[in-house]
């Protein structure tokens, strides 16, 4: 078991390496010159060259890459060109909002999608089923920001139930914290509810058709027991696969949602960094997100072994 985990962990290294090389190369090709921007309006060519040397931008690409990699291995993600602060500091400051948004979104999604999927499976073919499936197709067709603006229009501008903007830190009070997160989390969860409800429905349907379910029912087990002990257990694998995959989309969705609702998280940090050609920040954030994604997939792989004894690596 432990060996398996270690093996998987090691397998993430080449993946992350590829990510690192790709992002590094990509950003070095950008036309905007950060040295010129840092130097300011009155800078002479000499001053720009001096800054370039200072930041190490004049060395050959290979050297720059290795310097960057070794820094990361030491936990140094570099210094932001524009804020003149350690990128690590910037990230830590902005992690809470993104994390809060993601967690609340996932909770919403699971609370809504799984029951939806189960009900759909049980009532297959009925109008409920059709509505749910219809909703799910609509769900991944409308972009997050359109849903976001729609929600703001109805619930903030017209009904005034929720604030239009911003984020309240948890330490300032749970009520305001959740109040500011409801609309963004709802907007973001729509696409996931769509995916996961569908997946749940399909998996549960598959399982419900299996022989052992018929046997269980024949033995007189209550429907709930059948559902929990058999159907969900076996449907769990594909559902969790989807949840894991959905994380990748979650991260992307967070960027847009933070932009619409003006939440000062990692997503907004990325957009700002791109607009400012702030290489170190862009590199660090993309690397971080990729790492998280890879990690989550690893966790899910491990979950498989608990959920389905048939899967052994």
């Amino acid at each position, binding site marked *: 078991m432990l060996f398996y985990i270690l093996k998987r962990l090691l397998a993430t290294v080449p993946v992350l390496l590829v990510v690192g090389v790709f992002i590094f190369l990509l950003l070095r090709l950008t*036309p905007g010159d950060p040295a010129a921007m840092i130097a300011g309006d009155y800078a002479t060519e000499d001053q720009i060259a001096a800054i370039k040397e200072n930041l190490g931008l004049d060395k050959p690409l290979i050297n720059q890459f290795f310097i960057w990699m070794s820094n990361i291995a030491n936990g140094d993600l570099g210094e932001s060109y524009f804020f003149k602060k350690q990128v690590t500091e910037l990230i830590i400051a902005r992690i809470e909002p993104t994390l809060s948004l993601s967690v609340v979104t996932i909770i919403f999604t699971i609370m809504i999608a799984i029951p939806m999927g189960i009900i759909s499976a049980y009532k297959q073919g009925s109008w409920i089923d059709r509505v749910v499936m219809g909703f799910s197709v609509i769900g991944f067709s409308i972009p997050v920001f359109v849903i976001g*603006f729609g929600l703001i229009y109805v619930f903030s501008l017209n009904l005034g139930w929720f604030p239009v903007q911003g984020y309240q830190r948890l330490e300032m009070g749970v009520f305001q914290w959740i109040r500011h997160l409801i609309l963004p989390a709802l907007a973001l969860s729509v696409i996931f509810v769509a995916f996961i409800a569908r997946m749940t429905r399909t998996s549960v349907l598959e399982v419900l058709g299996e022989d052992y379910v018929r046997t269980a029912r024949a033995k007189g087990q209550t429907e709930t027991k059948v559902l929990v002990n058999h159907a969900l257990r076996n449907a769990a694998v594909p559902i969790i696969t989807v949840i894991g995959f959905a994380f990748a989309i979650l991260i992307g969705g967070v960027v847009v949602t933070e932009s619409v609702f003006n939440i000062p998280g990692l997503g907004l940090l990325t*957009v700002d960094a791109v607009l400012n050609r702030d290489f170190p920040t862009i590199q660090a954030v993309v690397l971080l997100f990729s790492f998280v994604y890879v990690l989550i997939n690893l966790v899910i792989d491990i979950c498989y072994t608990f959920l389905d004894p048939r899967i052994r690596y």
Partner: protein
Amino acid sequence: MKSQNAHSPFRSTLFRLFKNPSVLIGGTLVFLVVALAIFAPLLGTIDPNQTSTSTRLKAPGYEGVMKIYTDEGRVKVPITYKMGSDTLGRDVYSRVIYGSRISLVVGISVAAIAISIGMLIGLIAGYFRFLDSVIMRVMDGLMAIPAILLAIAVVSVFNAGLMSVIIAIVVPEVPRVVRLVRSIVLSIREEPYVEAAVTAGTRVPSLLIRHVLPNTIAPLIVQGTFIVASAIIVEAILSFLGLGIPADEIPTWGNIMGAARENFQLHPHQILYPGLILAVTVLSVNMLGDGLRDTLDPRFSKRL
């Protein structure tokens, strides 16, 4: 009783396609959007880039006079803004109609390019064992970066514009196509008739083209449809964030909404109208894809 031989498998597939409700509804809607794009100039539109500083930010239905510069100097042109006007006095209705052109162009180009490149790489990876692990590592790496972030990173390298947006959206889509094609190649390799062909001395390119390729067509068509839908959304997101196609070059649904953000509370129509038509378009493409998958190839196509 009809003779089975009279109907080729192609024709029977076609029949099944048209009987599938998703294909019918989705396909019709897509057709309508395409018609909208092609016949844009005939639908009561004006030049979507025509500005008029005296009639900015008017509500839908406003009837007024645009101040336009022509060779003769300043000219006054009466106008009814069916969907209101934007921050430079441009007609939102015209921009929304013309916006369909870019969305479709981006969607279809991205799908075509991603599939071509993905197919090539997938075939190589599936067939040449020694290249396989390297290629798949790279693909895994690319897939580890969330698609939007990857698109944002790629687009930041180039100057804003149509080509850079297309390239930026193609990059995250390629790995999935590669995976799909590769898995098909891998499963076909084991088939007896392929082994027979190899024994008979058939050369690799011929093998790939005559045996592998035909099996990829159906799943790739389905995958392609979903790529179109996803590309349209990603372009909208990029343009909305200000990282895609600039609003003054060509209108796209994304950049119409992006430019309208700062006045959303007073003029929500500028976001809601393009948002609506974007949603309907993507929805119809997704429906079409769903239907295609159900009829053509339930086996191989995984939306995910």
